[in-house]
């Protein structure tokens, strides 16, 4: 797979730091198993591969050499960078704070607020997102009756490879004529 991370870097965040766990979801065997996706919105299609801390390798800041140098760029080797023109690491990652994003003026954007980073370029989409028109919403349309949860950018898009992934489709509907024909054959 594309999003494999070398094992030496897999030191997970502590509980409260972890973003919701991502994984490429397998198709449920029947959609009717008792925890359908829409009942408890568990997201989504990516393993949250970002369960490491950049500062584990990049000691001081991102421009400095990694702590373990026996695998230069190994950690990034298998990654796919297809984010259009935006191919420079420091466009998004804060050079001084390896675990955070950078704003256009060099200030820090907290890691759990990716929206504030992405909106710098994707203004229109950000506006849509804020209006509830881009990205999924879960929960209640009527927030007087219950909570509404907006999914954030990197819960659906891999920042380095932002195109939405291809998915295996659920089975097609039954063609009634073919179905009848099969049934008749079965009866015989």
């Amino acid at each position, binding site marked *: 797979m594309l999003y494999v991370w070398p094992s030496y870097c897999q030191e997970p965040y502590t509980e409260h730091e972890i973003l919701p766990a991502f994984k490429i979801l397998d198709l449920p065997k*029947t*959609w*009717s198993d*008792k925890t*359908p*996706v*829409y009942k408890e*919105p568990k997201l*989504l*299609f990516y393993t949250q591969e970002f369960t490491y801390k950049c500062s584990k390798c990049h000691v001081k800041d991102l421009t400095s050499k990694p702590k373990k140098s026996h695998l230069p760029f190994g950690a990034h080797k298998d990654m796919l960078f297809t984010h259009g023109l935006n191919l420079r690491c420091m466009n998004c990652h804060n050079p001084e704070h390896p675990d955070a994003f950078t704003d256009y003026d060099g200030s820090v954007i907290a890691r759990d607020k990716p929206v504030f980073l992405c909106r710098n370029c994707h203004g*229109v989409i950000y506006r*849509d997102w804020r*209006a*509830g*028109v*881009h*990205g*999924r*919403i*879960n*929960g*209640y*349309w*009527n927030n*007087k*009756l*219950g909570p509404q949860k907006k*999914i954030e950018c990197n819960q*659906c898009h891999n920042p380095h490879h932002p195109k*939405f992934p*291809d*998915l*295996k*489709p*659920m*089975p*097609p*509907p*039954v*063609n*009634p004529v073919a*179905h009848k024909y099969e049934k008749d054959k079965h009866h015989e």
Partner: protein
Amino acid sequence: MSDQSRKEHDQTEPASLDDMTHEPLTRRSFLKAGAAAVALSAGTAITLSPLKDLDQHFSVNEFFQQHYEELTPEMMEKILERIKQEIKRDYDVEADLRDIKPTPGVEFAYALNLGRCIGCRRCVYACMDENNQSRDPEIQYIRVLEMEKGSMDIESSNHYYNPETVPNKGKYYMPVQCHQCRNSPCTKACPVKATWRDPDGIVVVDYNWCIGCRYCLAACPYWARRFNFATPKIASNDINTEMAYLGNRIRPRGVAEKCTFCLRRTRQGMLPACAEVCPTGSRIFANILEPGNPISYVLENKRVYVLKESLQTFPRFYYFFEK
């Protein structure tokens, strides 16, 4: 025919049939009549014999049930209780069945982003999960059409696409479900008012009043209605036990049904199942009377497309593209 043969006929038939009514009952005619009666009753018995396999229950109370408009809350209470018992008997589940009314000041609408949908059909199955459709014969409310890029012609669409992964190259996808029209041809067609538009815009069907003429299926320009040709089959553990009378309760055989914007969920403030599950977030649902709702945003800021707009059905379902 010649006159000669006509005369022959005249000779063979008596000039008057008066005698016929005074014909005494003879032993012979009695036996004849008896034989005929035996043959007739045997025929009737054979004719009625398939009834022993009848799998649909017909109850007297249901037979005399009044139209939805005329039901008092007490009557509805009894009906709900009866249906719960029927579900218990037929499917062995305890249903939480309620008659959920529309909220004043709420009108629903739906928008679907054609630029984002990838045709993964998760909405189709989430819908089945929520709405207790028959699994055999299979009934689905949402049909996802695989369309040729560069064309809006739904006749060239593919309903049965099944590649390894979607989206397919050179295709885009258009899911179609009930458009909850403001000028709905289906409710106009129904001869018995078994289907109507509720004030929140949802077109509902009373499954206990529908006579199953399927005129609404013929009338719908979006092919959004389905008919229960057989008694719905659904495994007990697939049943969503939270049910609404006009919504997702298990249907009887021989009635029409359709998407109700998941009224069991939406009338209680939740989003419909299809919108909740869409991985691409293409599906947007809102109360259009609420200021600043996403649908108004879409209508204002996006390029909106109404399917078969020329038919003037004024759907509550909009397709849109990225600007």
